[in-house]
């Protein structure tokens, strides 16, 4: 299929312009009441809930004398990082401090890019766990591609601040896994904010959560509806992709020849699936078992879309060749398992083996506690890999919580490594980040010092304010 999405995007840009002018917008095409209705070109806004994130003002800062793991696979001893205008201006040894720059002596300490968690439910399943805030999974039908996780994010989740204390600067919040199509995920900056729009990572692509296996068939099978089995899952996905392809074709026909092809009726679910087929929305798919991942790969070829990442991917180590060939990343835990049958074949070497056998791999948390120490999770995975003889450097393993998730979220041009021009998302660790005893001392987001352990620069959510736990880590 042709890249009509790009034309659609262009049309949408027009729509946005129209919105700015205060005239027709949001799918309401101009109608002058004349008799050429068939010529109306229908367009709608792709970004109706735009990011309003604006970085805190940072100062020109030079961090000196640290061991730097740049996230791109390099280790720099006695290295410096220069931050200007919220971006990384330079990284290397012996950098000169610009006049007036804040100088942070990090001798004996360690620097990594800000931690990125590609699998979080912060805000959607916030603390405390209460019925009113159990907003992470629209378990009402197996395809809820129409829901957007950002519309459930409660920005006052105390978990965001705890994650920041663990060095997390960017996180991807996903719907839950009880549906075949769970809905859109959203990539957030980990900043204390009043609204989710103030957290949205500017220009990060949208994602779509899909799920394999036990969860959808358990949820719907127990209600006596489909899917009740693995084969029901596959049939459910495929039926949806067929509808999505028709929908996409109808829109393309309309945009090619509006006079002869009226616009289809707008459908939120199919909007999202169409975005996947056009390569604009990234598939983030919960899938544990090797054989099920292989079937999903076939399905993606059947319908002409790309799976970006398999999440949990407990059995990725069994199929690194298939993943590498299909250019799909695996986002995994270090050592979770046993909670259900599809998690039974967990091995602690999953991440290291998948990586060493040529596939893109990374850590993820799926957990409000795990997100606070992804550095430790990577350390466990790395040491287990080394113990079985795999040769993986510390610097390489740092990419598992930095540049690899950035790549899988489509934001690698902006963050995930310490390279000139990128956003200055940086953690200064008190010790080697693969030590249990290391803590994030300073966390910078876009060059602004958002967390300073020693000087009590630490956000407190509205929920925590005035409670017993206020100010405690």
């Amino acid at each position: 299929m042709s890249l009509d999405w790009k034309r659609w995007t262009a049309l949408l840009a027009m729509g946005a312009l129209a919105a700015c002018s205060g005239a027709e917008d949001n799918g309401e095409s101009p109608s002058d009441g004349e008799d050429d209705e068939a010529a109306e070109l229908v367009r709608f806004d792709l970004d109706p809930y735009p990011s309003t994130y604006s970085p805190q003002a940072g100062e020109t800062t030079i961090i000196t004398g640290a061991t730097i793991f740049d996230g791109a696979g390099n280790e720099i001893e006695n290295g410096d990082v220069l931050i200007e205008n919220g971006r990384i201006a330079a990284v290397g040894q012996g950098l000169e401090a610009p006049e007036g720059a804040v100088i942070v002596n990090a001798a004996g300490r360690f620097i990594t890019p800000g931690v990125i968690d590609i699998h979080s439910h912060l805000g959607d399943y916030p603390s405390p766990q209460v019925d009113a805030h159990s907003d992470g999974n629209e378990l009402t039908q197996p395809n809820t591609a129409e829901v957007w996780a950002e519309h459930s994010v409660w920005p006052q989740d105390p978990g965001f601040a705890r994650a920041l204390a663990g060095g997390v600067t960017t996180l991807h919040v996903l719907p839950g896994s009880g549906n075949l199509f769970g809905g859109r995920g959203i990539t957030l900056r980990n900043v204390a904010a009043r609204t989710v729009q103030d957290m949205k990572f500017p220009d990060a692509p949208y994602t779509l959560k899909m799920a394999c296996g036990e969860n959808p068939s358990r949820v719907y099978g127990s209600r006596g509806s489909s899917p009740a089995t693995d084969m029901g899952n596959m049939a459910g996905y495929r039926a949806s992709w067929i509808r999505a392809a028709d929908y996409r074709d109808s829109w393309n026909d309309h945009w090619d020849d509006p006079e002869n092809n009226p616009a289809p009726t707008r459908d939120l679910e199919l909007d999202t699936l169409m975005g996947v087929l056009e390569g604009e929305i990234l598939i983030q798919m919960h899938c544990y078992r090797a054989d099920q991942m292989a079937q999903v790969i076939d399905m993606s070829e059947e319908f002409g879309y790309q799976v970006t990442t398999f999440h949990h991917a407990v059995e990725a180590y069994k199929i690194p060749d298939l993943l590498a060939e299909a250019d799909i990343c695996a986002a995994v835990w270090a050592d979770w398992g046993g909670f259900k049958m599809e998690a039974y074949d967990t091995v602690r070497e999953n991440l290291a083996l998948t990586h060493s056998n040529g596939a893109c791999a990374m850590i993820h948390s799926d957990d409000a506690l795990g997100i606070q120490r992804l550095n430790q999770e990577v350390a466990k995975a790395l040491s287990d890999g080394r113990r079985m003889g795999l040769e993986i450097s510390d610097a390489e393993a740092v990419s598992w919580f930095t540049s690899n998730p950035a790549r899988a979220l489509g934001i690698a041009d902006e963050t995930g490594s310490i390279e000139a021009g990128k956003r200055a998302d940086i953690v200064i660790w008190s010790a080697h980040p693969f030590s249990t005893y290391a803590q994030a001392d300073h966390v910078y987001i876009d060059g602004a010092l958002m967390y300073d352990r020693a000087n009590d620069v630490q956000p407190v959510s509205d929920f925590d304010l005035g409670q017993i736990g206020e100010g405690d880590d």
Partner: protein
Amino acid sequence: MKTIIALLAAGTALTSAAAAQDLAILNGRVITNTDQGQISSGGVLIRDGVIVSVGANIDVPDGVDTIDANGGWITPGIFAPFTQLGLIEVALEDTANDASASESEFSVALDVADSFNPNGTYIATSRIEGVTRFAVVPSTGSTVFAGLGALGDSSGDMDSLFDTQSFVFADLSQSGAGSAGGSRSAAWAYLEAAFGDARAYPGRYASGQGDALSRYDAASLVDVVRGRMPLILEVDRAADIRRAIRFAEENAPVQLVIFGAAEAWMVAGELAEAGIPVLMDPMRNLPSSFDALGSTLEAAARLDAAGVRVAYTTQTADGYFNARLLPQHAGNAVTNGVSWETAFRAITLTPAEIYGVGDQYGALAAGYMADVVVWDGDPLEVMSAPTHVIIDGEETEMSSRQTRLRDRYADMDDTTPFGYRR
């Protein structure tokens, strides 16, 4: 603790004597958990499953097998104080999960020894990460009482429960309040009534029924009421912990242990004064419920500073698959203010003491059972791992179903079909 003495007398002879030999572990940093402290380079001599000497220069008789620690760390085995090891193989499959029994007619009388499976695969995965002893704790079903717990080792032997009917576990937290009818008031009324039943057992049942418990359940609570068997109560909120302290005072000689304990640091002085120990996870820091708004990474340090006896759990992970992560949890306690020695004791000697077996397990000293782990580095560092695990003086296999799976899929270039690789 009915069987402990008998096992100590007979168990070493019966379960391990056949293979137990003299064994020396040399050339490592020895963590004794005794007044000997750390020995920067030394070893341990084991005879018939029991430690006979520990020191910088131990005499090793001719012909004794030796393990070279190769400069690593030699420590007592990890004692996991709150697990469902041997009860859960696959948590979501009812047929492979015996942790709780919400459909049962019984509560206190449910005995985990009848469910425990020493061949469960997580026994081995825990053992190769250094866990040698553990408490097996039932989970609550439809009442606040979960049942009777036991103490086991990770050898995988059929007799690896070394003490049964060791304690009773009950949930008086917000979830317990739910199962008792909807409030904490209901949960405490039920607990008080159950104690009344056990205190009046068997007389009350000769002519009628108990207020809370059936006759059979009441019989199982008698040892708790009389202070011969600990009662582990799950409570988180500071106010609930104070209520539990009052309960212990009013029901002397009951031996109370607090599990969960999110806000215990707020009443740490009272806990210390009452001599009530705490089982808690030092990594628990989210206000996960309105019971636990005071959760903090500093809780372990605050409890320790107040003199409370604390053992660590993996409550925020799980109790079956990842009880093996206890050293990481203890390491994070160190990161947040607990001394290394205290944190390491909190996963070795302290839990053994809380369960009344601290004179046999949890330390490297003459007379202690020889549960010894050799590590390739600081055991509380996430990058360290055991190289040798000795239980009752016997060196154990360092493999598990997980390492077998790992090895099967390690080499993608091997042309042997995967199903034939063993």
